[in-house]
């Protein structure tokens, strides 16, 4: 049944994005919010707003009962989880459906399966998708680790099965190091997560992060090509683009086809992303994980394919079949997104939750700014620092970079420090211009260039 009233269980720029998509579909919106977000743009533009708790996310945006209560009281018939918070919480997806509402995303069992590292890897292998060479499932003991690592080659990464956020990860460059590190990793994982289970993977050096956007309606699955997100700081993406400058047409076709096979094999419903490492040297790609949600960087895909991914996932949740077929989709131009965060790039990316003053936002052909700002808005310190995403599109990558430079140079905001100066510097860099980077490229670059980012914060009043 088509959705008539959608509750948005998220905040910030993605809540604004979802409200706009719903409005275009003729769907009413309910924005839930913490006490810290009562003055947010999403609350202002939604049809209704319901307060669900104090600032701490654990007591508001992660409070399943409060969110379901708000949905019942406002008679919402669907919930969109956005990204982060409850977006990949299988129990939440189940609870929404058990309450008689549609969850805008995959079924709970799909989230559960693809969210489990070992199960997702197995699903990929069964669908014929290459995975990073490593242990299939848990290692029996340190000796088992040594035997396997000697076979697949060093360096290898030892990971805790219960880990997260980089904890419990060790990299060994040879057998001696592995013998020393494996027991350490097991005891750290056991202490931190109560589970000492380890698995092992080959480290693909100088790899690119390339991901494929897919859309499924439970029966059919299509892909919307790939995004490249290799420019990362502390495993957080800062610059994303589509298509990848590194793929030739044959590799692109093989990559995207593998993503469709995997999504089809799990009967995927909604928008999802399959992430890969890509090795320039060998031209090989390897599955790393699937994200069963809309992603921050979805707009670059929308810009090159002309799709509206958020609207499409809402329609699918309302029971509709995919509105586009694979044959309808082609890559048209090149798009780049940069994340405008309230952080000072010249001061080790120190968070800057300031009061938004006067601003100048860029515009013109091929420029889009998805954000949550208005003059006088006090940025709350309780959530992530993403203020908005500046997206540019050009006929070619070269033109997109020129438009990015122009757009960032127009960008001015009083009262805050933002990451905008970083993108002007990156757009001027010859490696970025030629697309010659990998996931380990940005951090050393920042060490050498952060001093130059102090200029150009570009306030108006100052």
């Amino acid at each position, binding site marked *: 049944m088509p959705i008539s009233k959608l509750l948005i269980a998220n905040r910030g720029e993605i809540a604004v994005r979802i409200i706009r998509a719903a409005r275009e579909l003729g769907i009413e919106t309910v924005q839930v919010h913490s006490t810290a977000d009562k003055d947010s743009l999403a609350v202002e533009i939604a049809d209704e707003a319901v307060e669900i708790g104090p600032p701490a996310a654990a007591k508001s945006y992660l409070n399943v009962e409060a969110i379901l209560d708000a949905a019942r009281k406002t008679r919402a018939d669907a919930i969109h989880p956005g990204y982060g918070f409850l977006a990949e919480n299988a129990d939440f997806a189940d609870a929404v459906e058990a309450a008689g509402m549609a969850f805008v995303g995959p079924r709970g069992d799909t989230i559960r399966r693809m969210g489990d590292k070992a199960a997702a890897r197995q699903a990929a292998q069964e669908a014929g998708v290459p995975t990073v060479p490593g242990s299939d499932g848990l290692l029996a003991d340190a000796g088992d680790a040594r035997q396997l690592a000697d076979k697949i080659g060093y360096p290898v990464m030892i990971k805790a099965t219960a880990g997260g956020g980089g904890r419990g990860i060790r990299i060994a460059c040879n057998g001696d190091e592995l013998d020393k590190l494996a027991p350490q990793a097991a005891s750290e994982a056991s202490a931190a997560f109560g589970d000492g289970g380890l698995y092992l993977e080959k480290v693909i050096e100088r790899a690119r992060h390339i991901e494929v956007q897919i859309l499924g309606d439970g029966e059919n699955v299509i892909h919307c090509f790939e995004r490249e997100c290799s420019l990362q700081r502390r495993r957080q993406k800062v610059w994303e683009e589509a298509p990848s400058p590194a793929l030739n047409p044959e590799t692109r076709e093989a990559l995207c086809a593998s993503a469709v096979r995997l999504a089809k094999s799990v009967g995927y419903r909604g928008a999802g992303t399959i992430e890969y490492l890509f090795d320039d040297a060998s031209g090989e790609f390897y599955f790393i994980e699937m994200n069963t949600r809309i992603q921050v960087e979805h707009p670059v895909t929308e810009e090159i394919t002309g799709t509206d991914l958020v609207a499409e996932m809402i329609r699918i949740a309302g029971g509709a079949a995919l509105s586009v077929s694979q044959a309808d989709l082609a890559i048209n131009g090149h798009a780049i997104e940069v994340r405008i965060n309230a952080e000072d790039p010249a001061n080790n990316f120190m*968070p800057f*939750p300031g009061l938004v003053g006067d601003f100048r936002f860029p515009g013109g052909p091929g420029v889009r700014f998805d954000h949550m700002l208005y003059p006088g808005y006090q940025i709350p*310190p309780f959530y992530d620092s993403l203020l908005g995403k500046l997206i540019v599109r050009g006929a070619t990558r070269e033109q997109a970079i020129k438009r990015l430079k122009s757009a960032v140079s127009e960008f001015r905001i009083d009262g805050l420090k933002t990451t905008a100066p970083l993108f002007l510097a990156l757009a001027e860099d010859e490696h970025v211009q030629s697309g010659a980077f990998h996931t380990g490229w940005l951090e050393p670059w920042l060490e050498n260039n952060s001093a130059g980012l102090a200029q150009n914060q570009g306030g108006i009043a100052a």
Partner: protein
Amino acid sequence: MAKQEIRSPLPGTFYRKPAPDQPEFKAPGDSVARGDVIGLVEVMKSFHEITSEHDGTLVNFLVDNEEPVAPGQVLAEIEN
């Protein structure tokens, strides 16, 4: 005996423990040396250590664990 205040330099959320399942950095009555961590302030998902600028005894906390704080707000008092 002089009373010294430890203030939060940042807005955010105050934590008295390094992690939910670990003991508090300091309890009222504990002795505190200059440079000791007495808590964390989380701002936009990054954690900043709050350290004492004085030697002395921690008298009390004025903000509870996991409560929001404003910049300049007094977190704890120290006597020396």
